[in-house]
């Protein structure tokens, strides 16, 4: 009786691959040629999209989506990969935004200074608070993150020179890199508006960040993060410095949050402490979860859905039944349009968590794969995303598990 036969019907679908064509290399960015082509197409699309759509609304919305995706990308490192729940990502977005105000707005420094400045500021702020969260778990961590929001808000409103206090502050940062200015971009004779140029900047930054995060996730650092999440003691025994890894995850999350804050500031050209409160913190966490915890595309998909719903609902209220576009005190039965965002957040969360806790990313991946299968390709398609946390089929041996 060979060892491999001890679990007879368990994995009937999986057969031992022929020894030549085995094992995929997860550390590669693109595993197939198709993926490489798609990546190239994505970059072209980022540059071509703003010009091909004439709607200021769409540009503004997709810009916002990009910014939120970037902040969520950071949070995903912390919550998705490292398993640390934080509602306070908004604070680091705020830090980045106000750093951007200071560097890009007040000091009028160039893009190459203020945007990295936002990144660094977010990371520094995170480094400052990271040691606090190290020893905490579960509920304590959640509540601590809430505390950070309140303390952060206090700090923001009491630094009026930089933040404008409660009233907020306007800033018009430069989007120029010297040789190109995203604020007044001209490509092949076509002139881009400020918003269109900013869109390109946002999405290029997002794409670069995603690639960096994918690279990290698929190698030693990323594995260590997940290992610490799954079983901290076991990870330490394997030689992983859990404290260091967690602090690093926190700093990265903060830094990407800060980067997003800088871009948000450039987009709105006005920021206010109130914006970076619990609502944004929650929205970001919801984005990460609805998109798919610990997945590459989750933050983007989540942001695309979650950040656009309230705006779209208002925009198209008149076409949606049961919605009250106008408010007057007894305007008949209907849900005030502004409540739709809340309603949909609630519903989206509830639905995703109950039916597909692995998020949209997984749903889309599954749909995509079955499409490809339908198209008649017999070759197995590799998972487009790193394996998300799957169901624990057997929690039997958990007792005192490390």
């Amino acid at each position, binding site marked *: *009786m*060979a*060892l*491999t036969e*001890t*679990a007879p019907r*368990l*994995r009937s679908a*999986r*057969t*031992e*691959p022929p020894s030549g064509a*085995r*094992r*995929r*290399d*997860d*550390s590669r*960015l693109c595993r197939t040629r198709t993926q490489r082509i798609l990546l190239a197409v994505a970059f072209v699309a980022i540059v071509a999209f703003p010009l091909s759509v004439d709607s200021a609304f769409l540009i503004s919305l997709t810009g916002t989506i990009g910014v939120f995706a970037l902040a969520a990308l950071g949070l995903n490192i912390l919550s998705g990969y490292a398993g640390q729940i934080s509602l306070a990502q908004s604070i680091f977005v705020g830090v980045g935004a106000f750093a951007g105000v200071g560097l890009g707005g007040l000091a009028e420094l160039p893009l190459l200074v203020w945007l990295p400045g936002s990144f660094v500021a977010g990371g520094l702020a995170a480094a400052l608070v990271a040691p606090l969260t190290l020893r905490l778990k579960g509920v304590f961590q959640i509540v601590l993150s809430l505390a950070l929001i309140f303390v952060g808000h206090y700090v923001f409103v009491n630094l009026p020179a930089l933040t404008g206090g409660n009233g907020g502050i306007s800033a018009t940062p430069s989007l120029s890199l010297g040789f190109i200015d995203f604020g007044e971009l001209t490509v092949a004779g076509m002139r881009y508006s400020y918003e269109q140029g900013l869109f390109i900047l946002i999405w290029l930054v997002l794409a670069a960040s995603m690639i*960096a*995060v994918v*690279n*990290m996730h*698929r*190698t*030693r*650092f*990323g*594995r*260590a993060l*997940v*290992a610490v999440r*799954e*079983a901290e*003691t*076991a*990870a*330490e*025994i*394997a*030689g*992983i*410095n*859990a404290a260091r890894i967690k602090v*690093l995850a926190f700093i*990265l999350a903060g830094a990407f949050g800060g980067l997003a804050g800088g871009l948000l500031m450039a987009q709105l050209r006005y920021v206010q402490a109130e914006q970076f409160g619990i609502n944004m913190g929650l929205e970001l966490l919801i984005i990460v979860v609805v998109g798919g915890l610990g997945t590459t595309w989750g933050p983007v998909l989540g942001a695309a859905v979650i950040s656009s719903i309230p705006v779209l609902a208002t925009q198209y209220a008149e076409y949606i039944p049961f919605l009250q576009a106008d408010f007057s005190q007894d305007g008949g039965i209907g849900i005030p349009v502004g409540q739709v965002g809340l309603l949909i957040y609630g519903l989206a969360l509830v639905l995703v968590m109950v039916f597909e806790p692995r998020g949209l990313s997984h749903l889309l991946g599954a749909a995509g794969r079955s499409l490809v299968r339908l198209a008649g390709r017999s070759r197995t398609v590799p998972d487009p995303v790193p*394996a*998300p946390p*799957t*169901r*624990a*089929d*057997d929690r*039997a*041996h*958990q*007792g*005192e*598990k*490390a």
Partner: protein
Amino acid sequence: MMLRVEALTLSFGGVRALNEVGFEVREGEFFGILGPNGAGKTSLFNCLSGLVKPAGSVTVEGTELLGRRPHEIAELGVARTFQNLGLFGSMSVTENILVGGHRQISGGALSAALRWPRTFRSERQARARADGLVDLLGLGAYRDATVDTLPYGIRKRVEIAKAVASGPKLLLLDEPVAGMNHEETDQFVDFVLELKDRMGLTIVMIEHDVPMVMRISDRILALDFGEVIGVGTPEEIRHNERFISAYLGAPTGAGTTAEPQLQGGTR
């Protein structure tokens, strides 16, 4: 001397889990640990791997371990398995083994983000090593399977592969064959002996399967109530009165079969 433990004492609020424990393990040795439940065997391993803070001294090839954090001890080439498994449930078998090989891979977050060639070369090498281990342990069919979905016996093998992947010089195994049947136990013995030879490992193993321990150990440490009640060759331990009464509950005849005497003990 690979491992030297001296006057190791560990208490939990007045209760001494380990009391003045001392022993030595020579390089290349297969060292067994036997003792009743609650004798302090797992606690001893916890001391060796830095999970608790005992008094005394533990040195590996002359380097003091006490006071070091678990990951630092791992860096020194000490690897262990857990009695109740320490696997990363949502990761695949290969990834688990790669985590095990953490200390042999270079590169941090930044170099990975920037796709530093050296980092990725090291990654590829680690993957090749992991593949070798997968094959060695007959885990080929489960290479990319999520660990949580595997039967208990397979998981135990992954646990061992993970520990070995770090390329240790000292390997600590905590009840590696519990829950395996006789046949699997035999396979395990074969495998672990071969691994020891090939990698030049020193192995310390806790196990309640007395015949198996007697069969493969060069020397055995017997613990009871946190105290050493005997160290010696299997033959010596087999005839150690304190061990016999503490562990088997009755004086044994020459045979010492796996079958324990059915009359109740007095412990």
